[in-house]
């Protein structure tokens, strides 16, 4: 029961993030500092990739999943963090 709820929660998270991403892209034309928002959007893309890899745990298992997990942890998560920090540095300057 709890697994099913978690599965649907994962789907909902991914879908909501994708829709939010689209709305941020559409709202970009009303923003003045568009390049800063672009960096946030890049960070959100990496987050989406990480979440999709987590979501793929329902379909894959074993070595494939462990490789995907390692890639997401070692590559995409730090990239997401770097994007957000770059955005903040740009904003402060």
């Amino acid at each position, binding site marked *: 029961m709890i697994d099913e709820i978690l599965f649907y929660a994962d789907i909902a998270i991914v879908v909501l993030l994708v829709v939010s991403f689209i*709305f941020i892209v559409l*709202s970009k034309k009303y923003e003045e500092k568009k390049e800063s928002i672009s960096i*946030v959007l890049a960070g959100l893309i990496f987050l989406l990739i990480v979440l999709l890899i987590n979501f793929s745990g329902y379909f894959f298992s074993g070595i494939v999943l462990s490789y995907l997990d390692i890639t997401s942890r070692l590559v995409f998560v730090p990239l997401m*963090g770097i994007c957000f*920090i770059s955005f*903040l540095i740009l904003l*402060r300057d």
Partner: protein
Amino acid sequence: MVLDILLVIQKYVTALLFLIAIVLWFALRVKKVGREFNLRYALDFVFLIGLIFIIDLFSSYSIYVGIANKFLLLFITIVLFLLTLINFRRRKIIRERTLRDVADHEMENPLKKEIDRAVFTPKFRELDKIKGELKKEQSKLDRREDKIKFKEKEIEKELRELESREKEFENSRDDFVNKEKDLKKFEKDLMQMKDDLERRGHDLEYLRKSLEKENEGIKKRKEKYKDREENLLKEYDKLDNERDEVLTERGRLKKELNKIEKDRIKLEQLKNEVVEKKKDLDLQKNRLNKYEKELETKLEK
């Protein structure tokens, strides 16, 4: 083993990165930096996503922490979605209203005045400048027009002259056409002549080549004849020498022949003498024979 340790360290590094990001963002928000962002409330929740990676550090202690983490993420994404949706719709409505106000002539709008000041007033100034320049250009053009009219009259005169010349030209053109026809004929003839000349040229070239070949043959023959002439001259010299030798030999032989002739005459004389002596001897023999016969007869008797 090493990879596991690396992954654990990565977890802490990621948590630290996001902690720094969250702290920085909210510190900037306190200082009211980034107020120009319409999406700043949505960005609050984007940065709060980093909390998940921080809380994820404690997921190994209990399963419920992981589940709570997932629900927290769901909550953050729902709020993020709502905020982005609301922000988008609000901004869209505001932008549409602003555009409508700007487009409406009767409505008073501070943006209109700003646009007037920022965009239209400099443009009008530029237009005034351009207008002044255009007036100057117009006066220049008027002056040029007068000049052009004067020139136009001159051109009309020239045109009349040209018309008279044109008539002359038409007359001369007929002559020219006739001459052109003649020229074309002449050109055709020339072309034919050219073809003939080319053919002859080819023939001459062929003849020249054959003559060259023959010339080479003659040269070779000449060389052969020279060699032969030299050989003949050598043989002639030889023959000359031999002829001299023969002549000397003939002189010698003539002398010998004279000698022989003299000897023959002597021999003839000797022969005659011998014949006479023989005749004498024969006579003597006959006489002796007669005597002998007489003797025999006498003896018999």
